[in-house]
């Protein structure tokens, strides 16, 4: 009961601060995923087309994924110094795997018959990509973005160690305070909430974009 009361008091006193960190946290995650999408989707498309490249590229992004977050952050920090950009770069790297992999499987998963039909009707390679492959794999690509965003929101919590702020800062404060339980929660709850919310919203988009639902879009 006390914990809950303390929590409410904390939010009352520091509402603006929590909100700033929440927003900052979200932006870092979103930018990381956004840049990863800009780079990862074309890579996914490319390796779906030139399948000889795919094992190499997939293994590479897989390796990135296996590096522990703190270690990766530490290494990046040595190169790029402290600050938000370093965190965003780390999130970018972590987001690559789900995005590249989903784009790749999404595009390969488009019914071969449809690609052949497009080809036989005189579509150029680019037209097949734009009018057939991308629309039909959009929901799978979206699922990749969803995974990436949820992971990014989790990892962004440790950004505070290299001075990037975010909800992690509140949690770390709590761990440093004597009776900091409520403060830890004050940081952890919004983080969890953000992850759940992101998952939900992206999931909704994903379903909307699935080919079976295409009529809702038009």
């Amino acid at each position: 009961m006390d914990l809950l009361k303390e929590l409410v008091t904390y939010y009352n006193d520091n509402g603006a601060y929590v909100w700033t960190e929440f927003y900052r946290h979200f932006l870092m995650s979103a930018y990381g995923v956004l840049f990863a999408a800009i780079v990862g989707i074309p890579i996914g498309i490319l390796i779906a087309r030139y399948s000889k490249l795919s094992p190499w590229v997939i293994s590479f992004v897989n390796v990135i994924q296996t590096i522990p977050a703190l270690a990766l952050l530490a290494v990046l920090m040595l190169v790029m110094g402290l600050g938000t950009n370093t965190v965003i770069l780390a999130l970018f790297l972590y987001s690559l795997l789900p995005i590249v992999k989903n784009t790749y499987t999404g595009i390969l998963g488009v019914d071969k018959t449809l690609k052949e039909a497009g080809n036989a009707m005189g579509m150029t390679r680019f037209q097949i990509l734009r009018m057939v492959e991308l629309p039909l794999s959009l929901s799978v690509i979206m699922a990749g973005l969803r995974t990436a965003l949820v992971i990014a929101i989790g990892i962004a919590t440790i950004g505070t160690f290299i001075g990037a702020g975010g909800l992690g800062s509140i949690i770390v404060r709590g761990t440093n305070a004597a009776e900091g339980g409520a403060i830890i929660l004050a940081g952890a709850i919004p983080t969890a909430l953000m992850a759940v919310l992101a998952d939900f919203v992206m999931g909704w988009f994903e379903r909307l974009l699935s080919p079976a639902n295409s009529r809702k879009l038009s």
Partner: protein
Amino acid sequence: MLTFENVTKIYSGNKKAVNNLNLEIEKGEFICFIGPSGCGKTTSMKMVNRLIEPTEGRILIDGKDIMKQNRVQMRREIGYVIQQIGLFPHMTISENITLVPKLLQWSKDNRRERAKELIKLVNLPEEYLDRYPQELSGGQQQRIGVLRALASNPPLILMDEPFGALDPITRDGLQEEFKNLQRKLGKTIVFVTHDMDEAIKLADRIVIMRDGEIVQVDTPDEILRNPANEFVESFIGKERLIQTRPDVKTVGQIMNKIPATVHKEETLSTAIQRMKEKRVDSLLVIGEDQTLEGYIDVEDIEENRKKSTLVGEIVETELYRVKEDSLIRDTIQKMLRRHTKYVPVVDDDNRLKGIVTRATLADLVYESIWGDEDDN
């Protein structure tokens, strides 16, 4: 208009899928490639629009070597229909039909116009244009598949077992519909099938293939009468060889030329009167110029006697019909399959020419039996 000159295709592994194919196809001709699975039908067909490129030899369309043309441009001028149908699930029927016109950069209005025009050809309602493929039945989807191939009005259409995945009744209807459409539009068609009935029914000439080589090229009648060798004979099957014997062959030769009819402007009482006179329970309904509008039967009249007075108001327009030059064996098959008691016979302008009833067919059978005994 389409020429194969010594065309050979060797896939990696040195297997000759098609071996030295020579064939000349005339404009407006309906050609069926037929043969056992793996004999190279699909490969031959796909070489025409360069989905597969020949290893040796040349293919010419209107005298021009296809290898010297722009591949993408050329494909837009050749229709293509496949067994798997391959409509795009994220596009509406209208968008699916007019995809090639879109690639050819027709304006939106022209495309929509064209879609409306086309969907009329297969007797589907215009509302379907805004639906999605998965909302249509298999038969309807393949009708759309055919329309998609016709959209930019290409002179040549390639079809790979297009009706192969449909149930027999739907397939039957579509074959008939498509044959009529082809006659009307005068397209050159290369049609791959492994169903001999289908080939006989549709083709002007049948190309029988085996192990990548042509065994016989001829009209269906000629192939049935003079199969080139045992392979062709066994491929045709004994039954069909016998079926082709009787001298009577087309519906026009055996039909009853004075069917019981009623004009659509006549009254229901007249109709009843006529049914009594002719001792029938159903009449064909005709309109201006002898055009066939449909039929009415006794029950329809009984049910509607209070509400309506004219035949035209209650005529049933859903009616299966055949042409004078339809083959008797096809017609028999269809009547049996559909459990209909009769089929009206019409000409190309849908004018009523006669009727074939089960009684007509029974007469035919008796005649042929008596005929045989006379000979002995």
